[in-house]
């Protein structure tokens, strides 16, 4: 009967539709919730049969250079050689470049921890002690004592480093990336060398000399923004260091201070305002991004700026703009107020880099073997493999020093030095072990101006060691209170900085500004920081 058949037909369609919608509805949200680069198997059981070769799961961020060339670290010569030498094979999990912090949060929240995580645990909220309490990392003191002789010896020989890497309770929690060599400072002030020569000017050292030079750039070279920078460079420990205060928390003898709360901050603001009103400071500094700033340097609209030796100076010198055939750069010493004074506050990396430190998680079934494996990177042999690669292929010994071969410095596939280094070694960014070997740095920097810059910027590094806050950690409750207070203070400080510098707020109102900071609780914040410092000193 046609009626019955039609009814059956409807039922079939409705059921199929319903079931397919159900299936679609079930699968799509899962795809949304899974991170785009979910690891194939983030098994908590990482390692395999102990009597066979060790296999570890390893979560680490890949820097941009490396990510462009490889899908994971196993494609790099360094890790392939490492596997041959140690017998440990690694399964890498890499977060997408740019979203490392989010992916780390997701990793922790998921509870599916790999065997080893590489991350900056000094920025873990509540500090490394909390990470241990959260069962994210294992304390390593015993493991290092028994299975990591190289690292153990290094820490005994360098108690200052040991103090940096342990928690307030004395727990070692990571195999750190430790800076060796004289290259902790890798950025600073730079000027157009050809302009200085043309105008017969010396490199400026004091703020007064800077004013003279910037005026000359403006009047005689027609630079519309003689000194250019981005907002981060204004709020960071750059120019403000001339007044011996920091852009945020810093150390003055034994007390923690907050730069924007100090009296000298008024002088800094007044000077910046003067430069801004006179047109010596880029009018767009508060809104422009790195690209816009680059444009001004390359178009000769600016003659002075702040940049890093490698990716800044290196990049500019590699591509001399056609509009300025005499383009040349020179690094200037961090500015001071009086002639002959030494710079005391400027941006420098910590010896304990923070980034690129490896921890062992409770999910690791073979912590002893893992500790031993990580310790290899602290041995002479492991460090050489990591920093210089394979003799004959990536370096040659010349007069007792390792010199990179053309494979690295003049790569036949057209890779830059940084990219080639990422492909064959693991040296250009922090990694567990020693980083910043001078022999590597001297060769990473191709240009003489860069080599010179490295020396200039690092000349007074020992001063920074007494003005920079060491790696202090706040307890979980302190961290919450501190972040509450600082969220508001930083908003207010950032707004007022711009208002003072750009002349929207008369500098006479500085006292009202200070009073407001007090009302927001800056004293309490300093107390909390000081407490953390005291605990650090007792480590």
């Amino acid at each position, binding site marked *: 009967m046609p009626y019955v058949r039609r009814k059956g037909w409807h039922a079939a369609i409705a059921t199929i539709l319903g079931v397919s919608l159900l299936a679609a509805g*079930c699968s799509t949200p899962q795809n949304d919730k899974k991170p785009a680069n979910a690891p194939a198997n983030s098994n908590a059981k990482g390692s395999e049969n102990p009597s066979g070769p060790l296999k570890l799961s390893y979560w680490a961020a890949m820097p941009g250079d490396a990510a462009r060339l490889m899908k994971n670290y196993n494609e790099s010569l360094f890790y392939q050689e490492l596997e041959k030498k140690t017998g440990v094979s690694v399964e890498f999990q890499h977060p997408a470049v740019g979203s490392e912090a989010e992916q780390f949060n997701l990793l922790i929240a998921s509870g599916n921890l790999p065997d080893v995580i590489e991350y900056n645990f000094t920025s873990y909220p509540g500090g490394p002690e909390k990470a241990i309490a959260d069962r994210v990392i294992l304390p390593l003191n015993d493991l290092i004592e028994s299975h990591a002789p190289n690292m153990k010896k290094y820490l005994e020989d360098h108690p200052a480093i040991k103090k940096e890497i342990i928690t307030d309770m004395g727990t070692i929690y990571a195999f750190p990336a430790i800076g060796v060599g004289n290259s902790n400072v890798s950025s600073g002030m730079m000027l157009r060398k050809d302009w200085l020569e043309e105008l017969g000017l010396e490199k400026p050292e004091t703020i007064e000399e800077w004013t003279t030079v910037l005026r000359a750039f403006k009047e005689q070279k027609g630079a519309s923004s003689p000194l250019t920078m981005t907002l981060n460079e204004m709020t960071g420990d750059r120019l403000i260091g001339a007044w011996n205060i920091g852009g945020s928390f810093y150390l003055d003898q034994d007390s923690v201070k907050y730069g924007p709360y100090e009296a000298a901050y008024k002088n800094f603001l007044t000077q910046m305002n003067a430069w801004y009103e006179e047109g010596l400071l880029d009018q767009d500094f508060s809104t422009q991004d790195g690209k816009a700033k680059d444009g001004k340097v390359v178009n000769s609209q600016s003659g002075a700026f702040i940049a890093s030796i490698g990716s800044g100076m290196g990049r500019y010198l590699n591509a001399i703009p056609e509009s300025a055939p005499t383009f040349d750069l020179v690094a200037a010493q961090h500015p001071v107020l009086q002639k002959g004074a030494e710079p005391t506050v400027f941006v420098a990396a910590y010896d304990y880099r923070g980034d690129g430190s490896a921890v062992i998680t409770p999910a690791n079934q073979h912590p002893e073997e893992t500790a031993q494996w990580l310790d290899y990177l602290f041995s002479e042999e492991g460090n050489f493999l990591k920093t210089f690669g394979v003799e004959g292929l990536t370096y040659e010994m010349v007069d007792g020093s390792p010199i990179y071969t053309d494979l690295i410095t003049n790569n036949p596939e057209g890779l830059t030095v940084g990219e080639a280094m990422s492909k064959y070694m693991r040296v250009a960014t922090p990694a567990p072990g020693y980083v910043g070997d001078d022999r590597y740095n001297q060769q990473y920097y191709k240009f003489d101006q860069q080599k010179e810059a490295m020396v200039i910027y690092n000349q007074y590094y020992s001063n920074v060691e007494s003005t920079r806050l060491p790696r202090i950690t706040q307890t979980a409750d302190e961290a919450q209170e501190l972040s509450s207070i600082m*969220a508001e203070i930083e908003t207010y400080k950032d707004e007022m900085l711009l208002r003072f510098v750009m002349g929207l707020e008369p500098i006479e109102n500085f006292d009202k500004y200070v009073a407001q900071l007090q009302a927001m609780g800056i004293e309490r914040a300093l107390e909390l920081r000081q407490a953390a410092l005291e605990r650090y000193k007792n480590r």
Partner: protein
Amino acid sequence: MNGLLKDYRKHKYLYYMIFPVVLYYFVFHYVPMYGALIAFKDFRIAEGFINSPWVGFKHFISFFDSYYFWRLLKNTLILNLYMLVFSFPAPIIFALLINEIVGSRFKRVVQTVTYLPHFISLIVVCGMITQFLARDGIMTDLLVWLGMDRQVLLAHPQYFRAIYVISDIWQGVGWGSIIYLAAIMGINPELYEASRMDGANRWRQIFHITLPGITPIIVILFILKIGNMLDVGFEKIILLYNPNTYVTADVISTFVYRKGLQSFEFSYATAIGVFQAVINFILLIAANRFSKQISENSLW
């Protein structure tokens, strides 16, 4: 219940079809609501949901006591008000205008061209805005030609809301007009004929036939918009603001984003979210009731 059963027997297949959708909403939107409870706890990842301690209203109080609370609330509401006043009517007016176009080829071209900005990712749009409004940007050049001083508009708090709303209109007017055009198509053409016989010109037809015809849709969408008054998505603002413009641009969600960046403040962020959701809900109910009283249109 009896009525439901009867209806079910009559339209069995409709119920089968809607069942997966209802299940989806229940499982993925209603069940997870228990998570909002972390607003009243100090959520610690390692301890998980059950073991994190209760703290009552601590996060709410911390937010209300914040120095910037009133400014954040004000900026959020004002921005939404601007959107309601300018950005909401724009697609309606646009739809009415498109409806008046006679040449069908031109009509289609206009529609396609105006839809396209909707598909451009927000990040790209914000990048474009930043470039165009830079000191030497193309929009700045245009405005200087029209008599403005050369300046970077994004550095001035008084222009932020205008930039936000205008770019929103540019991006959304084409796409938003689709639903209104669909409603306009649904108006009985006999009404137009009757009005023409009564001597109505195009203006009169729009005011007395088209607009009343799409009023139900307008009211529904309006009520839904009111239900979002305390939400302003933070992505666009984060990409366009800077400390210069905090005073008008900093809204609840951007402040919480900055604060949340300093530590994993899940509970705090959730508390703010709950606060916003509760207010939005109250506004939604009020708007719906109000609309029901003054006209016959309402969401429910």
